[in-house]
């Protein structure tokens, strides 16, 4: 053999052999094995008398293609080892889980407190996320979301009928374009049953097919295949089918009446589907093609009220679809610039609420998610705190395990597995609680909110969110304690020494953090509560008590209704009711969520910036509106019966509108030009009153008389009455049966109940935040108690010495309280600063409360101080009661 080869061979296997102690090297092993075979053959041949070179050549010839054999065997080995590795990993994971489960079982108190801390936080997060999911993330339930988009005019306006049909008939990027218009209809469940007023939708052809909505029963309607003379078809919502017809399948083919026209129920929509617009809950779907017959209104006169949904053709992107619609819109504009000028089309995804509401909900969601995030963080701090204590108690165990060769990474993994189990148990429990809460929420809301129990139900997205949250919390609360435990200094541990001071300080920092977070939550909750209270007590500028609202829609009478005359008669007869002191009509009841805006131009005003006058809020009301709502008329007069269609147009302005339109003069007696092209004369100035939001800055508002302003069919009868709402309802229904026999009985509610909807965000905010604040307080109290107990236990000897040196019980208690109090005070200061910043951000939705609200903030400080004192007093007394001699000996 040549020396160089021999040398290299000798050297090579030697170091490789050492390498094998570290980890198996199958590739090198295989090389060795095959080389052994080759060399053995060579040796055999040489013994048989062959020359070495020839023997080598012959051996190589016999073996054939070495590299191919090596590859085949190597692949076999690889496959085997991969499989083995997987099994091994699985085995250690199972082992870790067992170890963790055993550890948790052994300390049930820790396990329960830890899982509850995490579980409450997860429950709060999953609940709020369910709401966020339903309002902002989830595609329209019950429809096939694939390629579905909303089509808006300009930013987020619905379309008129002719625009919708132009797109539908000419756009090639879409498989379907459908529209829905939501409104009240008069409905009789059988042709001669009592009429009822229901919420229903007019929908365009192919609506259900276009959205991919399945039918629970029967079929969707196709106007094309309707037999001449047969009643038109309608589809019932699943909820309505259950409620009105007890889910009886015999309802198919049944004839009902809509606006006194017979219609046949041909299908029941799938249970999940409600409407193409989130929040709408039509009971009945009626083909738009018959709307003119039912209402006597031409489709073109329905105005821009069609929410339009399209399904993009497969492979067409949103940008391409939008580009096509924009091109088409330009063509439309050219056909009639005066009508369509300035119009564009915009595509939007169809998740959650409509675009115009999205920003508001997004801000609210982000805010609430932050708040529940804080609750979870406080819970995490608790668990981290307990884990640190647990790691300290198990130091000996870890030290011994490390000393006998346990792997630190493995130790961290096991501790993280334990944390993950806590998070997982807490997560599952929290999810179950969240599910129960989200089911219950709708029953606490007014029915106008349009939510049913399924609305907030958690779906896959919520499950994914909760799982991700569990993982995240595991890392937040578990990683640091696990790393600390694994970095146990074996030698120091076995000697019994420890870096105690650092540890106490670290846990003290947890208390500071917890107090800060808790103060933030409590302070924000307090601001909401104060805002709720002040919104109840703030003077809206009118008196809603003893006023009853009756929402009357004469359009339900269908073609041939004579709204002005009918309304006039309704007011006349309502005023004559013995319990009624005053009756009026209003297009918009203030503080019920709706409002109207338009432009008023003072006579002779000079246009600047291209437009003259100002945008003002307005309302259309009948005589005695101000008397009924008891809003004082400061100067001039309010509307009278004489202000009718034959007399000079008149208007009442509120103080702000008067100042806005005539900043330099008296508004009374002046005239302004309105959108209908007429000049209205100001005959009265009324005191400012809230219109959109309670406690709002006064809004310039113009009131126009019902008899003179544009023709309206939908008005609210407002009665100031001494009777209760039930008696009023009976009386009003009797009156209406007489005046408009075909009108379904309208809803009759107290005005204060009507107004509840505007308070909903604050109410919900107060309810949620109050709950979160209480949760935070409980969790923080547990944390403060835990740290106080720990530091007392750690300082047993020191306290014993102090006692032995003559410190009184009082002094020792004061010392412990002071130690904890200092941390809580630091946290409180930080928390207050943050809370004030948040309060400033929230000022737009808080009524009558400033961000620095001494009562709210002072209350919070008091509460946290008391809780901190109560949580620390137990450990403090324990410290004071300890027997000094035993304390000193204890270590």
């Amino acid at each position, binding site marked *: 053999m040549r020396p160089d080869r021999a040398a290299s061979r000798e050297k090579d296997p030697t170091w490789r052999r050492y390498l094998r102690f570290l980890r198996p090297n199958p590739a090198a*092993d295989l090389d*060795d094995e095959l*080389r*052994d075979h080759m*060399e*053995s053959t060579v040796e055999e041949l040489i013994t048989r008398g062959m020359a070495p070179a020839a023997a080598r050549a012959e051996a190589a010839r*016999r073996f054939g*293609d070495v590299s191919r*054999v090596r590859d085949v065997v190597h692949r076999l080995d690889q496959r*085997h080892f991969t499989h083995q590795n997987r099994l091994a990993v699985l085995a250690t994971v199972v082992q870790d889980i067992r170890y963790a489960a055993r550890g948790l079982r052994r300390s049930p108190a820790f396990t329960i407190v830890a899982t509850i801390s995490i579980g409450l936080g997860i429950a709060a997060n999953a609940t709020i996320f369910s709401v966020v999911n339903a309002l902002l993330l989830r595609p329209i339930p019950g429809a096939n979301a694939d390629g579905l988009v909303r089509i808006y005019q300009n930013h987020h306006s619905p379309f008129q009928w002719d625009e919708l049909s132009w797109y539908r008939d000419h756009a090639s990027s879409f498989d379907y374009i459908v529209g829905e218009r939501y409104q009240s209809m008069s409905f009789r469940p059988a042709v001669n049953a009592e009429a009822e007023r229901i919420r229903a939708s007019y929908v365009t052809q192919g609506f259900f097919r276009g959205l991919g909505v399945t039918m629970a029963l029967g079929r969707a309607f196709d106007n094309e295949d309707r037999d001449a003379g047969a009643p038109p078809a309608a589809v019932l919502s699943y909820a309505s089918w259950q409620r009105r017809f007890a889910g009886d399948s015999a309802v198919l083919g049944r004839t009902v009446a809509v606006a006194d026209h017979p219609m046949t129920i041909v299908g029941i929509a799938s249970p999940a589907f409600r409407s193409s617009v989130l929040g709408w809950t039509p009971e009945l779907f009626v083909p738009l093609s018959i709307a003119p017959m039912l209402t006597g209104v031409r489709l073109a006169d329905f105005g821009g009220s069609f929410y339009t949904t399209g399904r993009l053709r497969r492979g067409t992107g949103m940008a391409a679809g939008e580009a096509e619609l924009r091109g088409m819109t330009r063509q439309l504009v050219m056909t009639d610039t005066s009508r369509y000028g300035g119009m564009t089309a915009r595509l939007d995804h169809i998740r959650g609420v409509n675009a115009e509401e999205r920003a508001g909900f997004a801000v609210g969601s982000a805010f609430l998610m932050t708040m529940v995030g804080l609750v979870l963080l406080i819970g995490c701090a608790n668990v981290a705190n307990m884990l640190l204590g647990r790691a300290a108690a198990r130091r000996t165990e870890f030290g011994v395990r490390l000393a006998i060769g346990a792997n630190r990474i493995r130790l961290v993994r096991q501790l993280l597995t334990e944390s993950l189990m806590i998070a997982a148990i807490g997560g599952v429990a929290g999810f179950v609680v969240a599910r129960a809460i989200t089911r219950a929420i709708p029953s606490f809301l007014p029915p106008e909110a349009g939510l049913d129990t399924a609305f907030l139900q958690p779906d896959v997205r919520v499950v994914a969110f909760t799982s991700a949250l569990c993982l995240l919390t595991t890392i937040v609360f578990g990683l640091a304690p696990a790393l600390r435990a694994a970095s146990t200094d074996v030698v120091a541990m076995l000697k019994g020494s420890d870096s105690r001071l650092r540890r106490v300080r670290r846990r003290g920092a947890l208390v500071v953090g917890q107090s800060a977070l808790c103060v933030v939550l409590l302070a924000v909750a307090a601001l909401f509560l104060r805002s709720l209270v002040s919104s109840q007590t703030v003077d809206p500028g009118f008196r809603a008590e003893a006023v009853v609202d009756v929402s009357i829609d004469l359009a339900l009478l269908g073609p041939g209704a004579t709204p002005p005359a009918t309304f006039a008669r309704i007011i006349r007869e309502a005023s004559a009711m013995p319990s009624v002191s005053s009756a009026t009509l209003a297009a918009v009841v203030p503080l019920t969520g709706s409002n109207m805006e338009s432009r008023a131009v003072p006579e002779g005003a000079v246009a600047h910036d291209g437009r003259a006058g100002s945008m003002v809020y307005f309302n259309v009301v009948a005589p005695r509106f101000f008397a009924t709502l008891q809003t004082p008329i400061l100067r001039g007069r309010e509307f009278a019966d004489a202000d009718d269609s034959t007399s000079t147009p008149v208007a009442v302005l509120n103080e702000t509108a008067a100042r806005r339109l005539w900043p330099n003069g008296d508004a009374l007696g002046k005239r302004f030009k309105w959108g209908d092209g007429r000049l209205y004369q100001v005959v009265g100035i009324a005191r400012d009153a809230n219109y959109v939001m309670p406690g709002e800055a006064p809004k310039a508002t113009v009131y126009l008389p019902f008899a003179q302003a544009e023709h309206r069919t939908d008005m609210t009868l407002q009665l100031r009455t001494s009777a209760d709402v039930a008696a009023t309802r009976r009386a009003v229904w009797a009156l209406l049966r007489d005046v408009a026999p075909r009108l379904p009985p309208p809803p009759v509610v107290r005005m204060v109940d009507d107004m509840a909807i505007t308070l909903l965000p604050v109410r919900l905010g107060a309810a949620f935040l109050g709950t979160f604040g209480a949760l935070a307080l409980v969790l923080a109290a547990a944390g403060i108690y835990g740290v106080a107990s720990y530091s007392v236990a750690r300082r047993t000897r020191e306290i014993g010495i102090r006692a032995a040196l003559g410190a009184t019980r009082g002094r020792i208690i004061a010392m412990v309280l002071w130690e904890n109090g200092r941390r809580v005070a630091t946290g409180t200061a930080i928390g207050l600063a943050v809370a004030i910043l948040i309060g400033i951000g929230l000022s737009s939705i808080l009524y009558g409360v400033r961000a620095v609200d001494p009562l709210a903030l002072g209350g919070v400080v008091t509460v946290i101080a008391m809780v901190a004192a109560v949580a620390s007093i137990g450990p403090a007394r324990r410290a004071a009661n300890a027997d000094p001699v035993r304390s000193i000996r204890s270590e």
Partner: protein
Amino acid sequence: MAADKDVDLIQGTLNVLILKTLSQGPMNGYGIARFVREATAGDIEVEEGALYPALHRMEHREWITAEWGVSENNRRAKYYRLTPLGRRVLRARTESWERLVDAVGKVLYAEPRRA
């Protein structure tokens, strides 16, 4: 399909030969090939390209186990040894092989019968 069956049969046979060889004691790959060659007086030549995949496969299945030793010439050599499982497999395969041979033999040497 038929070709696969042939491969299976050949591979199965090779496995039995290897197991039988190893039932005599631990041996490296070279030793196994040499033993089979000599036992069959050169009738059966075990190809390396078949031998090593078979050895490794049986090792993964734990019919045989391997350990590293040093050959006479001070080379690292891998010695295979039969496991109890391998021994059972050998017994079972031997029996079924004998049954096969017996059955095939019965057909091949059957007295031609007349109708």
